[in-house]
């Protein structure tokens, strides 16, 4: 009898230990996530519990998309504020980025599909290059490469250059492609870093259009 009581006590202790370990682990992860968000003037691409699909934590989600005015390939200034009332996908990409090249045809299709509903894409070339500021030849070549890419991919939407100049206001942009889905009121409703699938992009476009989650 005494031994059974002892065994029962030990089993209860083990169960209590499990419960404590689970709670402490949950607390630790919650605090880590809160700390990350609190310090997130910078976006972070982090591994998830499953370990396969990384998650992009953007400080801009739920906040107004910072306005900007960048040149398009013809040298005209294009500002985000001029698209107020439309749902906009800000797609930051680079010519050296393989995954950007893969998702561009999806973007072209989705843009054509949803344009009539008030949707537009701004493709923002963000070469992130370590070219010297006075390297005019290097910058011209870069611009030519961007124009060539836009032509090859038949991009029907504005392609803007020098996304690097607004990188900090958009959370750092440590990797490409990075997309921000902005609703008709100018609020960032979703953000994505890295390629996933056309369906994911479409779901976020619909969210920006207010057409479903």
């Amino acid at each position, binding site marked *: 009898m005494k*031994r059974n009581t*002892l*065994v029962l006590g*030990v*089993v209860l*202790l*083990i169960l209590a*230990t*499990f419960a*404590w*370990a689970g709670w*402490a*682990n949950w607390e*630790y*992860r919650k605090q*880590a*996530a809160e700390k*990350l968000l609190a310090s997130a003037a910078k976006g*972070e*691409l*982090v*591994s*998830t*519990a499953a*370990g396969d699909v*990384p998650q992009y934590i953007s400080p801009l989600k739920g906040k107004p998309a910072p306005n900007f005015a960048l040149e398009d390939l013809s040298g005209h200034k294009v500002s985000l504020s001029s698209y107020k009332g439309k749902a906009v996908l800000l797609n930051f990409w*680079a*010519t*050296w*980025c*393989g*995954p*950007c*090249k*893969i998702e561009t045809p999806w973007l072209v299709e989705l843009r054509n599909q949803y344009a009539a509903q008030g949707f537009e894409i701004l493709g923002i070339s963000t*070469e*992130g*290059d*370590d070219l010297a500021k006075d390297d005019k030849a290097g910058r011209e070549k870069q611009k030519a*490469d961007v124009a060539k*890419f836009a032509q090859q991919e038949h991009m029907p939407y504005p392609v803007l250059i020098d996304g690097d100049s607004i990188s900090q206001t958009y959370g750092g942009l*440590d*990797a*490409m*492609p990075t997309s921000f889905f902005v609703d008709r009121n100018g609020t960032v409703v979703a953000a994505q*870093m*890295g*390629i*996933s699938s056309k369906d994911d992009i479409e779901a976020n476009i619909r969210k920006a259009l207010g057409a479903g989650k």
Partner: protein
Amino acid sequence: MKSSRWVAGMALALLVLSAKGQAPMSDSPGRSITGGAAVVYQYPEQVTVSAGKPSPVALHFRIGQGLHINSHTPRQEELIPTTFSIPEGSGVRLVKADYPTGNDFTLPLDPNTKLSVYTGEFTILTRIVAESGNHLVEAKLRYQACDRNVCMPPKTITVPIDVIGK
């Protein structure tokens, strides 16, 4: 008595395991993917060569797990090749750099496009000429890294080598 010992042993083991679960691990959720350096220079930190004569030096690098960088000769012209250089005026001149051949690699979402990349560890075989004396050379490696889903901007890292020309 035996079963009590067994239960106590199990409890101890579970305590150890649960305590280990609290420690942050390198692959734990929440780890930043783009934050760290994609390429790390390994060795040599110091080389002694004959002054004024071309001398072979093998430079060893390691690429982060799950990442790849373009080889020195990527197949697509828009991709940025991996290149090694030694700044002028450092007392050491790069005569030649032999880069390893890239490995074929395809992204899962684009199986028809073959890339030429380095993964894991790679070595650049150089020939350098050093002036007589001790030179703290800050050589450069420029690369552009990606994983299967994202690409990081091109980066130039410093490759510090203490070159002694005798």
